[in-house]
């Protein structure tokens, strides 16, 4: 697989050729790390993927991805400013460093020939905090899935709420969940792939309401962040607390899946729950039965 071919690497300085694993601190040859889907060959640590890397990993053909509302960007509902830095200027900095308008990228594409509605989220953009853009894009993707009768795949990631949007940010929980309830009521299939980290309002809204909850190994998943818990209870948490494996053991997720078999697992799950792939634009809703008479 020609992985992450979209990743731009303009120069080849030594610092560019090698990276340090954030988990085991060992040096890894960058090229090898990328060939290995950003999974550390030494310790198995799953590094974060950018939105485009995630899309490339999951969908058949990036060129057939039809993005929803690609130009949508945050407004400044509160007139938020910190130490002279206005929120819109703050956002522009992230746009220039990531090339994104916000953390969430939504759209439709194909996975193993099956049409799906999809959202991926990029942690680099302001810690993937949820503001109105993420809420709206997730909602539009869910509505698209409802309308077209295709499965919904969301790959959540978030450090928490977008403080700069105050209560507008909190209300995105209600907005996204209302769309998901409607999708579920219609019988739609929703699979979420929780990545590092999935926290706070995102976990407590659209991320955890999937029919099948897959997580990447080692991903931090929860509601309250580790730092705040440690402040409150005044002691260190165990290293694995809130890890994907910890949450699996506590009954909160279905599967922890290595990145190299993630796409295959996703395809198998889609096949089993939604049935064999229907041709695009087929009238049949994918969740309808083949042979059971109603």
């Amino acid at each position, binding site marked *: 697989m020609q992985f992450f071919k979209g990743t731009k690497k303009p120069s080849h300085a030594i610092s560019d050729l090698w990276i340090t694993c954030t988990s085991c601190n060992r040096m890894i040859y960058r090229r090898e790390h990328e060939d290995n889907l950003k999974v550390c060959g030494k310790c198995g640590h799953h590094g974060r993927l950018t939105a485009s890397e995630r899309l490339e990993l999951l969908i058949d053909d990036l060129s057939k991805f039809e993005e929803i509302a690609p130009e949508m960007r945050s407004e400044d*509902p509160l007139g938020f400013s910190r130490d002279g830095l206005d929120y819109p200027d703050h956002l522009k900095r992230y746009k220039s460093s990531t090339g994104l308008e916000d953390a969430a990228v939504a759209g439709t594409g194909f996975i193993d020939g099956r049409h799906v509605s999809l959202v991926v989220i990029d942690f680099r953009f302001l810690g993937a905090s949820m503001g109105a853009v993420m809420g709206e894009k997730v909602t539009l993707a869910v509505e698209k899935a409802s309308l077209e009768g295709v499965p919904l795949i969301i790959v959540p990631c978030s450090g928490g709420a977008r403080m700069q949007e105050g209560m507008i940010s909190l209300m995105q929980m209600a907005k996204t969940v209302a769309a998901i309830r409607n999708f579920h009521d219609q019988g739609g299939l929703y699979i979420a792939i929780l990545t590092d980290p999935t926290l706070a309002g995102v976990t407590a809204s659209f991320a955890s309401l999937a029919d099948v909850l897959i997580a990447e190994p080692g991903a931090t998943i929860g*509601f309250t962040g580790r730092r705040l818990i440690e402040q409150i209870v005044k002691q260190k948490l165990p290293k694995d607390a809130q890890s994907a494996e910890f949450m699996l053991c506590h009954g*909160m997720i279905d599967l922890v899946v290595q990145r190299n078999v993630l796409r295959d697992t996703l395809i198998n799950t889609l096949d089993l729950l939604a049935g064999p792939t229907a041709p695009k634009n087929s009238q049949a809703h994918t969740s309808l039965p083949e042979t059971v008479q109603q």
Partner: protein
Amino acid sequence: MKPQKPTTLDFEKKLDQLRASIEKVQSNATSQDQVSKIEELKFELEAQTAEVYATLSPWQRVQVARHPDRPHTQDYIDMCFSNFIELHGDRYYGDDQAIVGGPAKLGNHRVMVIGHQKGRDTQENVRRNFGMASPEGFRKARRLMKLAEKFKLPLITFLDIPGASPVLEAEERGQAWAIAENLMEMAGLKTPFITTVIGEGGSGGALALGMADRVLMQEYSVYSVASPEGAASIVWRDHKFAPRAAEALKLTPSDLLKLGVIDRIIAEPTGAAHRNYLDAARLLKETLTEELDSLRSRSVENLIQSRNAKFRSIGTPTSNPSGLAEDSVVS
């Protein structure tokens, strides 16, 4: 239960001094002069209270919303409702006393009432975890929501929570899952639904009871995406910037009404609810009854549709496909 020993906030101190003067004069008031003096002082107290409360900063409003003497859910249940039966338990793990709920009557309406419950003293606060609900509290609330739906009881909730319980045990039992399931339940709940922020509306733990047809706030309550201290830690990297964060977060009723996040503000008596339980309860009950009468005249389908349309529209950013929208405004 009203507090035994009232607490005084900084900006209330001069009001307390006035109150002390009144009591002093009152305790040996014999002449007509002294009676007039008392009247005068009382008038002065009322005026000064109004003035102090008219100019509260957002951060001071946070203090009032958190005031330890402020009426809590159970106080309003006692004062506004009758025949309340508290129902317990989530049927999975426990009974979280940080959330109370059960069927009751509001005037002639049979309703289901649910709210976050803070304690009044240290002992009660330990039992109620300072109002910080656990997954089993949210799950109990969901069970009661379903009961309300089944028996067609309108749902009335009260929000008053610093934030969902931030401990590892709550994570283990799926704090985020419990809140998300509540949101999904409320999004399609087939019964009229009114929520009122009566103190601190803190983040997802508050919203977990609050996705209502009508979202009301008492005049001196606040509703925020995070505590000002928490937001200050995140944005200013120091929780001491809480007053500045309180300002920036736009967490007051009037700001949230402008932002379209809430639907209505319920007045409180002069000096806020903690100075006058009965009037606070009367104003709350009048508003709830009025809102309920209005909701009950509409079909459940219409309610759910409007409920979701309202949350659907909050904060929808302008989409600029191909970046053309901004230009096209000109043409």
